[in-house]
């Protein structure tokens, strides 16, 4: 029992997720349903996959604003190149583009010492430009139906996209919790100078995390494009904001040094459940914006109170 109380104190977002589930189950007959839960998981997977990588970057004390543009770049390449390279080749190029953008961000942040916020703000604007140049402002359509069939496929009646998300969440959790790299993520985020003195190669370490989030953003974009069987140049707009929101709701501090994958999963699910539930209840879209914005601020407020009670300091 104590452990549960402990967990709840550490992960207040999960209380919120539970409250949402109970509320929507009572108020909509369509909500509490296995099919709907797998819907929610698929809907959560897009932001969720990016959020896994973002958690590493943000615990590091960095941030990546370019993920939304990377989503569009990877999706456009993976769909647009299919006629020349086939599905496998095009997807590989798409994933590679995410790795490259991540590496570029990481190297710039490492070598120039420019704040990650600025580096990736620049990339967010510039990568979107690359997408528009490559696509010539057009949407692409995957002529091979096998591509969109994959996005709709299921194993044991669980959507493949949801399975991929769950699997990678577990992998990310294990890496963060039980590997040397994972421990270094916290050390670097907690105190960069001390981490350097302790022998951690801070620059390359951060580079790996930028590559990780770039890769996951590309994967997320490609999986999203399999759901659509198409890509659009405007794909992924504002995803960086929703991803950061999910990660922060999950208890990761923007100052770095503190956070968890379990919390991030809670943050991602909270947003997905809210959206799904409000759709089922037909809350007008104008109010959805107000509700989401207010909840974000309220959760931030509550989280701060929790943190202060436990003497974890001010997360400002």
């Amino acid at each position, binding site marked *: 029992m104590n452990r549960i109380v402990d967990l709840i104190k550490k992960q207040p977002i999960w209380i919120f997720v539970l409250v949402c589930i109970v509320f929507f189950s009572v108020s909509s007959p369509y909500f509490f349903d296995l099919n709907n839960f797998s819907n929610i998981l698929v809907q959560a997977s897009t932001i969720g996959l990016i959020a896994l990588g973002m958690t590493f970057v943000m615990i590091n004390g960095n941030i990546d604003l370019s993920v939304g543009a990377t989503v569009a770049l990877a999706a456009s390449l993976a769909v647009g190149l299919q006629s020349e390279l086939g599905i496998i080749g095009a997807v590989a190029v798409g994933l590679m583009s995410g790795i490259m953008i991540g590496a570029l961000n990481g190297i710039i942040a490492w070598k120039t010492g420019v704040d990650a916020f600025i580096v990736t703000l620049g990339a967010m604007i510039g990568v979107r430009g690359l997408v528009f*140049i490559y696509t010539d402002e057009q949407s692409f359509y995957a002529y091979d139906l096998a591509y969109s069939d994959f996005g709709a496929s299921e194993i044991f009646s669980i959507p493949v996209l949801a399975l991929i998300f769950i699997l990678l969440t577990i992998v990310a959790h294990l890496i963060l919790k039980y590997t040397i790299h994972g421990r270094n993520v916290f050390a670097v985020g907690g105190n960069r100078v001390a981490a350097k003195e302790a022998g951690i190669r801070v620059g390359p370490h951060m580079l790996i995390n930028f590559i990780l989030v770039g890769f996951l953003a590309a994967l997320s974009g490609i999986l999203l494009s399999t759901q659509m069987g198409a890509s659009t140049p405007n794909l992924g707009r504002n995803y960086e904001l929703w991803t950061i*929101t999910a990660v922060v709701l999950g208890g990761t501090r*923007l100052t770095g040094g503190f956070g968890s994958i379990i919390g991030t999963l809670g943050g991602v699910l909270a947003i997905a459940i809210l959206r799904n539930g409000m759709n089922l209840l037909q809350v007008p879209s104008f109010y959805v914006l107000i509700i989401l914005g207010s909840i*974000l*601020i309220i959760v931030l407020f509550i989280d701060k109170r929790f943190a202060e009670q436990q003497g974890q300091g001010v997360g400002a």
Partner: protein
Amino acid sequence: MKALLGSFRPGSKNSELSPLQFFGKHGISVAFVLCVVIFSLATDRFLSADNFFTVVMQASIIGTIALGVTFVVIGGNLDLSVGSLLSFATVLVVDLHDKVGPGTAIILMFVFTLLIGAVNGYLIGYLRLNSLIVTLGMLSAIQGITLVYSGGKNVDISDQENTWFAFFGREEFLGIPIPALIFIVLGIALQIVLLKSGFGRKIFAIGGNGTAALFSGLRRNRLVFSTYLLSAFTTGCAALILGSRVMGSQNNVGEGYELLVLAGVILGGTSLLGGSGSIIRTVIGVLILAMIQNGLLLLGYPYYTQWLVTWVVIIVAVWLDIAAKRGKLLSTY
């Protein structure tokens, strides 16, 4: 990240500037001149009085907002809600124009815009919540409020020819378009406030290394609060220009402006860590972005090529700036 800043070596104290330091200090001005020269050589349409005012006009909306946001950033915070707030203020002033007359509409617009600024300021200044997340939440909430207010419809001013509201966006004084004039005058006034007033010095102090600002908590809270009032105020001024220019408004008119504003502020060399920055440099930063946009379009490049150039310019400018401060081109960690 503050720890990181501490690890930088302070630059040498020689009065002779190394090339690196020269670029750090005057890099933004050099970039500005470079932009003018390159575009002037590339197209003869660039360097004309007409086009010059077009650039300043197009920069004036983002630029006016950036003036207030510069104070917020110097104070060590961010404001991502200004894009939504611009939509809100523009819709409000345009919609009220026909209902209560231009004068009252402008007053009401400023009242409600400052009220929202005060909410930002209270949450960040007094409750000390993280500014990135609070203003992100406000970005969404204000957009919703705007849509609820207008019912999702465009708003228009019906009699566009005979209203003095046209003054802010469509008229000229001594050949200078009023939007450019608002931007310039407000810029000069706020530069004086920032450099010569006690208020300005205190903003630098609270944004600088936290412990150095030996203010009582209450005074710090009030100062942060006031920076958000200021950014709401300049956003309101931008809404006057925008509403008057278009004589109507869509509900998402300011979408994405927050990042362009921030790009201008950053390009001007204001540090996101707070404690340093300058209004004049913000103005130059915003003008560079507008020139890139204008120049590339004049050269016949599609509009999205400006985004690539912006990417490079932002990173190179900020890199040179901090490289000069640490006295080394590459970072040491």
